[in-house]
């Protein structure tokens, strides 16, 4: 059980917690939090692989994570804007009740 495997298991667990939350929780914001956790699990994987690679001066892992953080922040912003717009229209953030396609 090398340190790399430890990190991989940790990020797998984190990913599955995020997945479980996204699938089971009712509230849209918690679904979004779950997605954030999944994204972060992926980032952790990148950094773990970068750290334990032979030529770590290639910096690909770190670059990927920096851009991934940027994209995730943008995605969180747009996601929350959507949730607020849906809340304003449907007066609820419960994912089950937001099921009619009529605008």
């Amino acid at each position: 059980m090398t340190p790399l495997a430890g990190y991989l298991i940790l990020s797998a667990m984190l990913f599955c917690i995020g997945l479980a939350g996204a699938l089971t929780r009712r509230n849209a914001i918690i679904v979004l939090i779950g997605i954030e956790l999944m994204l972060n699990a992926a980032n952790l994987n990148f950094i773990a692989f970068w750290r334990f690679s032979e030529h770590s001066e290639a910096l690909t892992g770190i670059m990927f994570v920096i851009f991934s953080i940027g994209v995730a922040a943008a995605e969180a912003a747009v996601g929350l804007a959507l949730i607020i717009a849906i809340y304003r229209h449907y007066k609820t953030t419960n994912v089950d009740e937001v099921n009619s396609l009529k605008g």
Partner: protein
Amino acid sequence: MTISFLIIAALILAASVAAMTLRNLVHCALALAVAFAGLAAAYLQLNAQFVGFAQILVYVGAVAILIVFAVLLTRGGEAPERNVFSGDWKWGALVAALVFGTLAWAVKHSFASDRPLPTKAEVTVKQIGDALMTKYVLPLEVIGLLLTAAMIGAVIIAMKEEKK
């Protein structure tokens, strides 16, 4: 498997489980912030200093507050009365467990389980800066564009429409 790794892993997992299972939404958001901070500690332990501090700055500093504001704007402050989990929550948990099983199996049998620990990779901010400015300058411009577009999009979506 040093002790510090175990402590940080425990912190991250506990915080993320709390973020997923707590009833009060604001508590979930705060637990998420703790999870982000734990992840930053994990990055620091992996000698990725720049990414660790960037993680704190972006996630703990901004995204956590963004989520907390969203919770307040959608009246999530009070604890919900009805059941927090959706009807068929068992299926969700089953799917998650299955995914974890396959991932754990893959990690166990992959080459990672016997990878020796290479030397301490010391990365200075100057190297990251050079890489960003030379090899990855195109993604940098694109992400700048993307962030602006996302910001404007988010503002337009969340803007109050004028009553016609």
